[in-house]
């Protein structure tokens, strides 16, 4: 795979800002670096994939080679990804040779400040390859299992539940959707498979957090969630803690299917270190009267490109994207939403808030598609940007493709700044500049943070405090 390398930006940013740390890990079992047909065969063999998955992967690989980099509309920084230098598969159980003593002091403090439990700190710091939460996880698994819910890893899903898995896998997001969905199709491992039977309302949110391990936080995870008729489920992934990163490219694919009258909420909170390219494809298919809601918080990374979408395929379907993006110095958050109104009387809502700090860049890219012959479709889009200090940049590209008179679209955008007078006012009341900034930023995202489950919203607030403290001289 020929990749162009521009030397204008270093391969890996060595940036000691909050949540950013890395050290080398000794890999015993992996597929080596680089990607070719052999790598894919290696992955298939190790994972004992069925033949149809092998074919699916190879087809994905071909499409990955064919598809152009989206540099023409996104960013040239993508050209700095060197595909030959990436490890596409790490086997499970690889033990990092680190001890807690090796973990940088500032990182320990960050865990402390975020209130991350002791056990999880070790995993997150890369000291332990497995997060031992089998107890908590099996409780949830047992609880939902009684209701007939399947909640397993994607590998287990495709092996043990092929009848459901095969029906929907790769149907919402075809491999050919974009270069990175194709790459994921070729080399995916990890991620979750969930099936909720008709009418079952899952009381507990299902959390990827409970089953953190090398697989789940994999670079190329693949998640498929199917909510059968009239069922309800909430899924949460990620955590606010900075995650030890050995790999610079993360490219996940998440497919959701909500059958008639079903409801899916998918909550993501991610805090990437600033050497990471996070290029994710997330889309849901909502049947008649179904509802899909993406609640998404992206912090950090060198470049995040993520545009969660909902295809409203059945009459009365609803789609929603609530997102918060925070781009600190040197980071680029290119996020947005895609709402495809493929049936009458469908409703979509997008609320996006971005915060750019220092040289951070936040871009909103939206697509709302309502073909002319549709009736009774509604979209509401709000995107607000907050700039902190004069270098910050924000761009909004809302593409609303709505034709025909029997549909309604509403779009509002705002850009505001935390100005020095506001900071002075708050400092006059005794708050430090950092505290004043984080109050202002928390105030800006406050209404969206409330949409997150309780434990996430508390962590989010602390995380914003940390980011803001780090951002003032």
């Amino acid at each position, binding site marked *: 795979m020929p990749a162009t390398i521009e030397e204008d930006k270093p391969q890996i940013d060595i940036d000691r800002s909050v949540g950013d740390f890395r050290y080398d890990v000794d890999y015993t079992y992996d597929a080596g670096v680089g990607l070719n047909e052999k790598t894919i065969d290696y992955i298939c063999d190790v994972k004992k994939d069925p033949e149809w998955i092998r074919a699916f992967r190879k087809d994905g690989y071909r499409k990955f080679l064919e598809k152009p980099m989206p540099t023409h509309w996104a960013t040239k920084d993508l050209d700095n990804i060197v595909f030959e230098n990436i490890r596409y598969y790490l086997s499970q159980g690889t033990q990092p040779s680190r001890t807690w003593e090796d973990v940088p002091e500032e990182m320990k403090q960050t865990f402390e400040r975020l209130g991350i439990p002791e056990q999880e700190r070790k995993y997150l710091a890369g000291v332990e390859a497995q997060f031992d939460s089998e107890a908590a996880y099996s409780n949830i698994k047992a609880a939902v299992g009684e209701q007939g819910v399947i909640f397993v890893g994607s590998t287990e899903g495709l092996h043990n539940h092929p009848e459901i898995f095969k029906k929907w896998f790769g149907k919402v997001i075809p491999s050919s959707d974009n270069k990175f969905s194709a790459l994921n199709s070729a080399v995916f491992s990890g991620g979750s498979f969930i099936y909720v039977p008709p009418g079952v309302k899952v009381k507990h949110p299902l959390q990827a957090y409970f089953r953190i391990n090398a697989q789940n936080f994999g670079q190329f995870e693949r998640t498929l969630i199917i909510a059968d008729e009239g069922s309800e489920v909430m899924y949460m992934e990620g955590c606010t803690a900075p995650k030890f990163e050995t790999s610079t490219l993360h490219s996940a694919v998440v497919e959701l299917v909500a059958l008639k009258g079903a409801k899916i909420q998918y909550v993501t909170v991610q805090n990437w270190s600033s050497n990471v390219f996070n290029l994710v494809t997330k889309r849901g298919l909502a049947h008649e009267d179904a509802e899909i809601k993406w609640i998404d918080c992206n912090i950090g990374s060198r470049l995040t490109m993520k545009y969660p979408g909902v295809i409203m395929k059945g009459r009365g379907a609803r789609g929603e994207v609530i997102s918060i993006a925070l781009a600190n110095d040197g980071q680029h958050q290119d996020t947005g939403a895609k709402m495809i109104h493929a049936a009458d009387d469908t409703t979509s809502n997008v609320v996006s808030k971005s915060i750019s700090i220092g040289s951070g860049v936040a871009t909103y890219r939206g697509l709302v598609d309502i073909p002319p012959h549709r009736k009774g479709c509604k979209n509401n889009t709000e995107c607000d940007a907050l700039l902190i200090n004069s270098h910050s940049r924000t761009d909004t590209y809302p593409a609303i493709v709505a034709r025909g008179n029997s549909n309604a679209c509403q779009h509002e955008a705002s850009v*505001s700044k935390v100005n*020095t*007078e*506001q900071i*002075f*006012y*708050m*400092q*006059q*009341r*005794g*708050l*430090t*500049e950092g*505290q*004043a900034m984080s*109050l*202002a930023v*928390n*105030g*800006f*995202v*406050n*209404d969206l943070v409330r949409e997150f489950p309780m434990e996430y919203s508390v962590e989010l607030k602390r995380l914003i405090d940390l980011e803001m403290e780090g951002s003032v001289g």
Partner: protein
Amino acid sequence: MSLSIQNLTANIGDQQILKGVNLEVPAGEVHAIMGKNGSGKSTLAKIMAGHPDYEVTGGDVLMDGVSLFEMAEPDERARAGLFLAFQYPMEIPGVTIANFLRAAVQARLPEGEELEATDYYAELYKKMDALKIPRTFTSRSVNEGFSGGEKKRCEILQMSMLEPKYAVLDETDSGLDIDALKIVSEGVNALRSPGRGFLVITHYQRLLDYIVPDKVHVMVDGRIVMSGDKDLALELEAKGYDWVTEPALA
């Protein structure tokens, strides 16, 4: 024990605004500053509070013997006991009064000590009731969409929660209706104590009927040109500023 302004000069850009201000407010006293628009009253207040736009070119301000300028950041001065009720209070979208004040009170506690939420709310409600601020205001964003008078009342609420050693009130009376003026004045008077000093900037003698000052100073073009007792305010009200200014220019 005093707030002592000593020959203070200050610029904005290369324009001199304060041209040698001398003024001493002993703890326990209330002093008023009056003066024409643009004479430098708010500038003086903001410089003491540490506004980053102004450059102090000479002189000093001592708060109980400690120079304010030794404290680089505005928040250090605030925590040391200086409070400024702003002429134009800022709006902070999304930050509720309750959370804002809680953070400010918390910032004054020793390291490691957590503010007790129930005590805090009890105190906050008590003070809001005294200032006749509806309790529903706790969940409103700081100053956002407040009427002029509500903003001023909210400044006094903040002052009474933070209990400063020295408070500078910059035209807190402007925008207040007659009832509110009484309520706010009572709020200020309730805080008068032997250990606390006030510097009250106003254009109207009426305020000084309620908050009776120990001294009244007149500022003209970046200087205090005349000082007197509370009757000076009456005289200014009757005669205007020209009789003060002219001898100063001569």
